[in-house]
């Protein structure tokens, strides 16, 4: 799958951007040239050699604050996506196989969760449990999980009634075998698409919450928080919100690009893409007497 995504230009771009973001998240605080919390003498300074992206209203280095804030933003969005995946996907697959009661209960639960507005709910949870991003993201993840439930269920339903699944059952295969052997490969691509999308959505949510000042205590920098404080000084420094806004935008865009790339290479079209390549390789092998190593493309 990774190899197929990499064979597309869009996939390469998306992965490159996301790798850079990941590096920022991991090493951002170390890379920050200055202390992100240290106030300086030159508030609202323009970009210069000392402050590449200028300073904010307290004279803090914007670049350092951005780098330092990336970890919270990235981790937060990943938390949303993986919580949603964990809560949604497995019941989605099993809802097809585990009988009617389980199916009915999980379907109604999914409907209920969809009905709750997650931003409001996240705010409410923080009000209840105290100001912590982690709790907020867990709750948001749970509220986004019906997406995964539905995607996984739809993909499983399409496979479950197919003759090859029946053939496996006639051979005595258990539900576990059928899921591992036949369902997984068909469900994974749409789930990967949903995951990439959700990471993007997660970014927006984290940024929205931190923009509103929820989830992170004020001095600690986040992308959303930077955007909020920069917007306050728009009249002095009209270009200042550009840097955090662009970062958020590029990251979300890369996630969507990746989702598109995964969708393009999976399913029938993706199979055709790989098959034509393989056929071409086979033909070359036939023309060429030297045996080429067989590629384990699946």
């Amino acid at each position, binding site marked *: 799958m990774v190899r197929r995504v990499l064979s597309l230009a869009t996939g390469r771009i998306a992965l490159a951007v996301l790798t850079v973001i990941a590096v920022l998240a991991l090493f951002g605080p170390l890379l920050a040239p200055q202390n992100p919390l240290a106030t300086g003498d030159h508030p609202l300074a323009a970009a210069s050699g000392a402050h590449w992206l200028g300073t904010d209203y307290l004279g803090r280095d914007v670049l350092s604050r951005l780098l330092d804030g990336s970890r919270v933003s990235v981790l937060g969005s990943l938390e949303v996506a993986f919580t949603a995946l964990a809560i949604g996907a497995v019941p989605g697959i099993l809802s097809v196989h585990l009988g009617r009661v389980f199916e009915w209960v999980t379907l109604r639960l999914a409907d209920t969760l969809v009905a709750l507005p997650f931003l409001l709910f996240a705010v409410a949870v923080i009000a209840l449990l105290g100001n912590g991003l982690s709790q907020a993201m867990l709750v948001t993840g749970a509220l986004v999980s019906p997406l995964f439930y539905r995607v996984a269920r739809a993909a499983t339903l399409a496979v479950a009634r*197919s*003759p*090859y699944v*029946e*053939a*496996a*059952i*006639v*051979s*005595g*295969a*258990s539900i576990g*075998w059928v899921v591992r*052997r*036949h369902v997984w*490969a*068909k469900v994974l691509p749409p789930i990967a698409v949903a995951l990439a999308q959700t990471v993007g959505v997660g970014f927006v949510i984290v940024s929205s919450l931190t923009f509103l000042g929820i989830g992170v205590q004020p001095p600690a920098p986040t992308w959303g928080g930077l955007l909020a404080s920069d917007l306050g000084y728009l009249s002095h420094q009209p270009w200042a919100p550009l840097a955090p806004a662009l970062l958020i935008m590029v990251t979300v865009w890369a996630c969507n690009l990746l989702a598109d790339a995964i969708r393009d290479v999976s399913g029938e079209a993706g*199979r*055709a893409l790989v*098959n034509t390549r*393989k*056929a071409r390789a086979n033909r070359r092998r036939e023309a060429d007497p030297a045996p080429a190593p*067989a590629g384990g493309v*699946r």
Partner: protein
Amino acid sequence: MSTGPAPKATTPGEPAKPVLEVKDLQVHYGTPRRRRPALRGVSLSVAPGETVGIIGETGSGKSTFARAALGLVRASAGSVVVDGEDVSAYGARQWRALRRRGVIQYVFQDPLRSLDPDLTIEASLAEPLLVRGDSREEAARRVRAFLARVHLSEDLLDRLPGELSGGQRQRVAVARALVTEPRLVILDEPVSALDSANRVQILRILEELRDDGVALVFISHDLGSVAGIADRIAVLYQGELVEVGAAGDVIGRPRHPYTRLLVRSAPTLHSAPADRAERAALRALLNA
């Protein structure tokens, strides 16, 4: 088969026990309120090594018969005995145990969809073996042996189904049904999607199987294919078995008006089929 049939049911001297015995089988579809009968009391037994053809048209219940014999649909009445075991009241677990023994196998109609498009041919073929617990090496060895029986080359093993022709795919599907050395294979329209050359090839393979002592239930709406391969033919009409007999008798001297209608409707090379008047007369007889 490379090894003989299972020791069960082959006590020398005695007549062999049927490998499939269906008695008064009834199957209903639909909701409890509006039940539609799909099979209304069908009785049929298949002796070891025997080839029984089941012919019938759309909606005659022939696929339901196969699915009931395999436990894929629940019978509402009647009994099914597979290889000496009464499976009528079997639950999921017992069915799984029976199926894992590989005594009874199934070949689906649609060669395009009966193989997982994401699995290599080798993985598809090895599945019944791995499910019953064979080691990977053992499975690989058997898969190769059975590939040869359906006249396919080993080069195909690492291909995906999408890279094979329809005829090749159907042969792979037949091979998958054979790897566990079943005593009974049920084939649901195995040649309907194939052109004549591939049809004949599959039928030849089935003949070889029959010569090896595997019992076959061959379900088709194509009278010609059934006539070509079956020892006995059963005719299903609206969920009822209207005629059972030796293939030559059923085709050559059909007794039931429906069988006559079927036989006389099929175009043959040498004789013109029934004209509209004759068919109408047979239909009238049938509805009377």
